[in-house]
Each structure stands twice: as structure tokens, then as C-alpha cells.
């Protein structure tokens, strides 16, 4: 069965330094660089996902336009115009920084005010730096469970669950 190819815009969201750009680099180019370079504005990358079967048993292949958006900050947040037309978002928190988790309600609220129908996947990045019982992981798991949001711990460094997180979002977009 041939898959229908659909182009969708998704946003990478989170405060600065959580690893949004690293997640995209790992997913699109299969590369990782330990050095940190803060993002200004937006960088758009493309990646075609493998065909996926949706809940109606139709084969869908997504061409994802991934908007790697500058991080939310204490004083500033990205322009709402960046979110227009988004079909989904990968919201990234940093498992080494609790502030990246406490800021999540603002991030969700800001994004959903512009794109209320967008599908969401939450990831806890840098899992290679914390253990399985880290308070941030517990907090994030609880946050995801309470909000009924798909959640995965990831590591852009080792690549663990990065592809799975984008695939998960692709699956939500297919329905």
C-alpha cells in the first residue's frame, strides 16, 4: 500500500538550553555536539518520517518541517507568529534543571493559545545525566500523567528515544 505524503509544521518548544537544537540535529542529521550554541529566532529543518499506519489503517508519510525555536526566557518568550500553522509540538524539558519543568505551564498556554488543535509530545531530555529516580524525572512524569500528555525521557547525546519521540508525534499527527 502506498503512503500518502503530508507536509506538517511542528515546533520545538522549551526554555533555553534544554536541548531543542541537539534533538533536531540528532534526529535530522544523526549528529551530536556537546557544545552549547544558543538559538536566536528560528531554524527550520525538514525530515521525512517512515510511513506510519493511522488508526483508520491508512498509510501516512509525514514530511516534517521542524521549527527549532529560540527558548522561552524569564523575561521574553518567542513571537506568537512562530506558532501559526503548527500541527504539533515537541515540548522539551531538561532533566538536570527543575526550572525547565516549572516553566512548562506557561509554554503550553502560550503555544496552545495560537495552535489549540496541535498535537503534543513532552520529552525529558538529558536522561544520560540523571538517574532513573531523579526528582525532575518524577516531577515530569507526574506532570505528563496529570495533563494526559504523551511523555518520553530522551538523550540527544546517546540518541535514546529521540527518533521514538518524533515518531510518537508523527503518529498523533496521522490521526
Amino acid at each position, binding site marked *: 500500500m502506498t503512503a500518502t505524503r503530508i507536509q506538517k509544521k511542528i515546533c520545538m518548544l522549551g526554555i533555553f538550553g534544554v536541548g531543542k537544537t541537539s534533538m533536531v540535529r540528532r534526529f535530522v542529521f544523526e549528529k551530536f555536539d556537546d557544545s552549547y550554541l544558543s538559538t536566536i529566532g528560528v531554524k527550520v529543518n525538514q525530515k521525512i518520517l517512515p510511513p506510519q499506519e493511522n488508526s483508520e489503517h491508512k498509510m501516512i508519510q509525514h514530511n516534517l518541517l521542524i521549527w527549532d525555536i*529560540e527558548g522561552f526566557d524569564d523575561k521574553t518568550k518567542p513571537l506568537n507568529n512562530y506558532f*501559526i500553522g503548527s500541527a504539533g509540538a515537541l515540548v522539551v524539558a531538561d532533566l538536570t534543571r527543575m526550572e525547565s519543568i516549572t516553566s512548562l505551564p506557561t509554554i503550553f498556554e502560550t503555544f496552545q493559545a495560537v495552535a489549540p488543535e496541535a498535537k503534543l509530545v513532552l520529552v525529558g531530555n538529558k536522561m544520560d545525566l540523571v538517574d532513573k529516580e531523579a526528582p525532575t524525572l518524577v516531577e515530569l512524569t507526574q506532570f505528563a500523567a496529570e495533563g494526559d500528555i504523551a511523555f518520553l525521557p530522551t538523550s540527544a547525546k546517546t540518541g535514546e528515544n529521540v527518533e521514538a519521540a518524533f515518531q510518537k508525534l508523527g503518529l498523533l499527527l496521522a490521526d
Partner: protein
Amino acid sequence: MDATFFKKLLDQNSFGYAFLNQDLRIRTHNRHLARFSMRDRNLEMALLTDLFPETVGLDQIFEEIFEQKRFSFELTHMNRESDEGQTIYFNFFLYGTGNKDIPYFFLVEDKTREAELAQELSQRSNEIRLLEGLLSARSGNVSARIWGQSLPIENLRAQIEKMGRIPTATILLQGESGTGKSMAARVLHESSHSSDAPFIEINCAAIPETLLESELFGYNKGAFTNAVTDKKGLLEEADGGTLFLDEIGEMSLPLQAKLLSFLETRKFRSLGSTSEKEVKIRLIAATNQDLGAMVKERRFREDLFYRLNVVRIQLPPLRDLGDDILIIAQNFILTLAAEFKKPVNSLDKPAANKLLNHNWPGNIRELRNAIERALIFCEGQKIGADDLHLGSLQRDEPSSSPLDRFKLPKDGLAFAAIEKKLLEDALKMSNGNQSRAAQLLQLSRDTFRYRLEKHDLI
């Protein structure tokens, strides 16, 4: 002023621009546009969304501009990598022209210089905050990994935080099997050392005595039959970090003497070596045995015992932690549910009571195993009492209930004083909650109150 004037103005200031038809195909453009676009030639009649994928998803905006409900739209600081690998930044603007044939005017402005300055500024402040986050994840917050709010846990947390500030002090961790001695050692290490400092762990009971010596101190080539190359010992591997010796009570007396010598001088010799090596490590030893009693029985060196016993941290058994059992269980549920990808998020009331009424001979390890097993079988969002198989787990663990350990002293004791002490302890552990305290002593609330009155405790 005519259109030529504006074209010249835009060209001279390196703006890129294009007029688009209703299908968003480029009708005319200037030469600068190619510098920002995904392709540098054949732009004529190309789709705007192919040249500028940033415009994908803006259908609603284009429609509003076409219908003249909106005059303009802008997006700032778009990044694009040039062929030379440099990042260029640009803002783009969409305007309605009011002309049905070419309804859109697309304008691109180079913002590289401005963005580079902004990048430099945010880079510096963000780097510092990221480093702080990383350090706090490894130090300040480490004791938060010791779950619970009871008095014994608060005391343990305070002791660990205090000892985290002295990275070379030797520490003895004492506690029953399964109370988390290995985790406490790791928390102590992480709260006092940098992320790349080594943490070396060895279980003295798991390695034959002859091997343990060579593992700890290392050996030189030819030191014994199979020593074909030099091998670093764990003391050396742990240099700059922590060496954790679990079940130190199982170490042989001759090896205890060698360890003591190292602790006194911080120097040691590898097997077969004539020269001494010096290392800087924190030694953490752990045991579930009564080392003091072992000293009396001459099974543990007294001098080593006093050397290790300078700082002793006692890990409380789970049965003494009261409602913390539920806090610890809830944390295990959340972390294990994420690992197993199961939607389980809590315990129901009967399951919680079952956990509170269990004696936990295997301590936290037993609780973790019980939750793990319950999660595997649980079908809903809450773990029920039937999902918890505590009986069979209890049989697998050696019994260590307080009654088993209690022996009446030869000269007897005052029963009333014991009763009063039990009542006081139960009240303390339940933070004054009489129902819970009665539960702990397996008494009805009325009987419990009667006994409180008897001892003038209310």
C-alpha cells in the same frame, strides 16, 4: 515617486523581494532574494513555500491578506545556513498589494549582524545558568533523591548534606539489608565530587578473599602466576573520587590490616611492587552487621572499627518510616511506570493500607520489587491490594521483625515502662495521629486511648 525608486532603494540596502501571484508563485524578484532562499537560481515561477519553507502553514494569513482583511505579516530572525557554512539571519514581511494578479509582495531583510550580537549576549548568560543547573543536578539536589518526610529521613538527609561538604572524610554506613546503603554512598559521592570524578563500588562478600586483595591494591606483572601484565587496583581507579566498600564485615582480618594501613597513611603498595603509591579518595564502607559485636568476637579489627566509625550514618529500616512508605512507593510507581510505559499513577486506598501494615523485612529493595511486580500485573491506573504480593516476597527474605530480635535481659525489665515507650514512639512516628498510632501497635483506637490515659499521655 515611481516603482523604480523603491526598487533601487531596496536593492541598494540588500533587501530581497518578490511579487507573488495568488498560487504563491514568484512572478518577479530582485537578485538579492536568492541569497536568502533555499535555491539560488530559477526562482521565476517557483513556489514561495519551496524557496522559503518558513512560509508553510501560513494559508490562513495568505487568505486574510488576499481578502484584504490584513495588510501585512512578519516573521523575525529566520536562520539559514549559507553554502559556506555561515548562518545568516533574516526577517521577512508579507504585504497585500491590492492587485488581483500579483496580490502579494514578499520582502526579506538581512538581520545577521543584529542577531549575532543578540546571540553573543544570550550565549554568555545562558551558559552560566546551564552550568549552574548541571552542578545543582549533581550536588544541591542530590539529597532530594532520598525520599520521605519522616524524622529519620530528615535526619539522614541532614547528615548526608553535611558530609557532602567534606569530600575526604571516611564514612561508615550501617543499616539492614535493602535500606539503600549503595544509593546513599552514591549520593554522598555526587554531592561532594565533580561529575567526572570516579565512583568505584565493590562488594567484599562477592569476591574471594585472595582476589579481593589484588582487586583493591592492584598488582605488578609477575606478582603471582597469572599476573601477566600490571593491573591498577580499585584504590588507584578511585583516585580523586570515592571507593565504596560494601559488606566490609566480610573482609578477612589480614586484608583489614592492609586497609587500615592505607587509611592511616593514604599510601599503599600494589602486589609485587616495591614502591608506594599515594591516592586521594573518600572511603565509604557499609555493613548490615554489628561491627562492635564483631570486634568483641575478634572477627573485626578494633583499630579499623574506630577508624571507620568516626562518622557513622545509620540508615533507618523501612518499617520505622511510617507514611514515608507511601511516598517512596509513589515515587517508584512514577519512575517504573515511565520505564514500563504503563499508565499506572497511584495506589488505591486498600493497597496503601496493605503497604502500611506490612513489616518490610527486605526494606526499600523489597518495596521496589513489590511495586515493580504490581505494575507488571496492574491493568488500571491505580495499583490495587490484589496486585501487591507481599506474602511471597516476605518468605524470600530473611525474617528480621523486632520481636524476633528482642530478648528479655537476664535481670528483667519494667513492663509498664516498655508499654509507655511503645505508645510514645507510635505517637511520634504518626506525628500525633492517634488512629495511625493505634494501627502501628495493632490496637483498636479505644484500647489505644485507654492505654494513653493509663500512662498520663493525654
